[in-house]
């Protein structure tokens, strides 16, 4: 599959001094160790197999080629005459010239074997294999290209990835909201290669119940998936969702949470965080929203559904694993709460949406966890959490917050994380919740 390649990861500046075993053992002379005791630097350097390689375009005989199967840039021995232009074009020191033999040398990942990694005893080099993720993906893209959502919206990646995992045997349910335009294209033209069902905000889980039960009766295994926003989930459509969860309907419910009614012009919803600006919680006298958000995924845990998880598109591997788990649930509802930063509503630059997602996880504003039958487990432990200020300062909706308010925000985040960790510890000890 194009674009999913194995990656050689090198830790920065953690090599032991005077160890160059990777360089010595490399039969291709494709990895270099850099030792500078004076500058206290000991690291390694190799080709990173870039996406848009300049060396390939610079080669005057077309000797370099990127293999689309594994993403590796290889040199054709018979075409290379060692002119050295590639070593000038590559700014990252990934290709070298043997001036005696007049040939270019570079890393070719030993055709996927990464021999240097086996020799490295200090855990500096590590391979990230793409196969585990690739195996979870279906070959066919179900969502067509050119989706009518705003520039930079991560919800679209979430939807696309979800369909990639669930495959063709899926019916997608949606309600008025941002995703409706991507799923039903406002009724103008089909955007998806599976059936879709446009419900009202108040009856998504009830409609799904009917459709899923019909499929169960005729003996067909079809995933019924809802892809709806936070307003529909936590406010308008909460009652039928709660009912369906309690009845144990075998449906998959994904809530993309952009923390307000973004589609209708940024009105507050019950997941809008404390202090955030929206058009219905103006800054003015009150300083944004006066109450904290509803903790929607935790509420679903207390409904005792088989599977609940939180996810972001910045941690796609984690999201894909959770989708796979949700797909395998057969005895009740699976609920995934996907954070989808809205550049427009959050007043952030378009290109920052992924970075916002990442920062939300790294500041523990939005911890990644899952609950299988009530057993909570944190799936992505943040070792050195960043202060919440670094997340808040990335967007305009919190720009009015003063340092004191940010401190109380931090306190709230810490408390929420403390509770989550406590529950996770408890789940580990004994199956108390069930």
């Amino acid at each position: 599959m194009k674009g999913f390649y194995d990656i050689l990861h090198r830790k920065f500046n953690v090599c032991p001094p005077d160890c160059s075993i990777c360089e010595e053992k490399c039969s291709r002379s494709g990895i270099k160790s850099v030792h500078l005791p004076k500058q206290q630097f000991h690291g390694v350097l190799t080709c990173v197999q870039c996406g848009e390689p300049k060396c390939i375009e610079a080669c005057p005989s077309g000797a370099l080629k990127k293999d689309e199967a594994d993403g590796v840039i290889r040199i054709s021995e018979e075409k290379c005459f060692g002119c050295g232009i590639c070593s000038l074009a590559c700014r990252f020191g990934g290709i070298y010239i043997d001036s005696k033999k007049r040939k270019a040398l570079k890393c070719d990942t030993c055709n996927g074997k990464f021999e240097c990694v086996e020799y490295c005893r200090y855990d500096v080099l590590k391979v990230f294999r793409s196969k585990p993720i690739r195996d979870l993906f279906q070959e066919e893209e179900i969502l067509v290209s050119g989706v009518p959502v705003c520039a930079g919206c991560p919800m679209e990646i979430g939807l696309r990835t979800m369909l990639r995992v669930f495959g063709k045997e899926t019916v997608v349910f949606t309600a008025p909201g941002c995703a409706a335009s991507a799923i039903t294209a406002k009724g103008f033209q089909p955007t998806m290669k599976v059936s879709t069902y446009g419900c009202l905000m108040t009856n998504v889980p009830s409609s799904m119940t009917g459709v899923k039960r019909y499929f169960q009766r005729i003996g067909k295994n079809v995933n019924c998936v809802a892809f709806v926003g936070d307003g529909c989930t936590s406010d308008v459509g909460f009652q039928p969702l709660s009912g369906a969860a309690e009845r144990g309907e075998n449906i998959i419910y994904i809530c993309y949470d952009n923390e307000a009614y973004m589609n209708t012009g940024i009105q507050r919803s019950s997941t809008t965080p404390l202090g955030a600006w929206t058009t219905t919680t103006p800054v003015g006298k009150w300083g944004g929203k006066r109450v904290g958000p509803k903790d929607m995924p935790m509420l679903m845990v207390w409904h005792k559904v088989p599977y609940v998880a939180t996810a972001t598109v910045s941690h796609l591997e984690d999201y894909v694993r959770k989708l796979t788990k949700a797909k395998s649930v057969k005895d009740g509802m699976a609920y995934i709460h996907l954070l989808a930063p809205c550049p427009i509503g959050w007043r952030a630059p378009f290109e920052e949406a992924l970075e916002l997602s990442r920062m939300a996880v790294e500041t523990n504003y939005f911890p990644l966890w899952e609950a299988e039958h009530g057993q909570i487990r944190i799936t992505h432990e943040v070792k050195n959490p960043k202060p919440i200020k670094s997340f808040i300062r990335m967007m305009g909706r919190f720009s009015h917050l003063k340092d004191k308010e940010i401190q109380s925000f931090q306190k709230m985040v810490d408390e929420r994380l403390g509770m989550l960790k406590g529950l996770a510890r408890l789940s580990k000890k004994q199956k108390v919740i069930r």
Partner: protein
Amino acid sequence: MIIGCGTAALSAVRRIRNITTEDDIKMVSREDYWPYSPASLPYLLSRKIAKSKIWLTGQNFFERMNVTFAREKEVIHILPNNHQVEYRKGGKEDYDTLLIASGATPIKLAPIGLDSSNILNFHTLKDLEKLGEQLKEKREVVIYGGGLVATELAIALLERGLKPKMVVRSRLLRRYFDEEFGGCIGQILSQKGLRIYSGGKVLGAESRKSGISLVLKNGTSLNTDLFISCLGVKPRIPVIEGNEILIKDGIIVNDHMNSSIPGIYAAGDVAEGRDFFSGKPGINPILPNAIHQGRIAGSNMAGEKISDSGWISMNVLYFFGHHAGSIGTFEYGVHQPQILREFSNKKRKGKELIFLGDRLIGARFLNINLDPGVILYLIENRLEIGSYKEALFQDPLNVGRWLMLQNEHEKGVILKY
């Protein structure tokens, strides 16, 4: 539509297809070959590589990129008002957006008394074939010019076992190296059998039955069988109707590679872009520059606004187990640079780094082990090297790599020193 199929044109196509898949792209080439790079010609001459191996793209490249490729179609006329181009062989064709990447043409020699049939060039595959044909019988070669192409040609002829002569107007590789560096390279080549006549402008020539006799400015007269003119290149610009387009030496382009007419772009040897250091327009007919400009032109043609940081002069030369390179500028105007230099003619080793303030602006080296691309990274990113100048000078390979890695790691954070 893209005029030309060289490096700049191919880079532009790749970039356009990265951004959009639907636009129709048509590429027209003047020559009747698949795309190749003139930089491979010396190696073809020295028989390091077979002709079948020099093609830049696989057969399916145009199919994969969904590009219509037409050969032997030379555009001689552009009609910007009608959005049309006219071919030499007749016929017109429409375009929406045009990229002129038609490359360069050899600078013509001032008349010295020889017919054009006696003057050979070294610029296209056809020139090479003609030269190869003549070399079958004739052994004596004079190369006129001292630039990089002339030097590479001389190296290729030496490697074929010939003893060429080189007539240089000022000195060898003037654009890239100073006297000491250039002189040392000249000495190495002389030992291999090259004779260099520097400071010798060809004043007159005569074609006789036995060969060609040349008279140089310093009074020397030379006899030879073949005379190859390698005086450099100048942009090959089709006639563009109307007088809205700005042309000095090449087509003057802005930071988006757009010429003074909206919808007409230029990239590569034909374009006169901004100099990285001075900001003044100028032509820089080298391969890495063609990729850089091609990519920018491609992005902007497909609707993504990307700005050019300017071109940097650079080149590397590998010959007989030696290597030399020159990156950046050596002209600093009124500023006071800090120059670190070490040169040994005996050891045939030398390096020179030029700093302006805390930043590296130029580097020259002969037989020094380093990554030229990494040095270029330091210049291009205007990295503040500060107190590590001496360390970089002592160990350009490792310190260069370290500075690059550190900057990539911290991205945007200025190094502490």
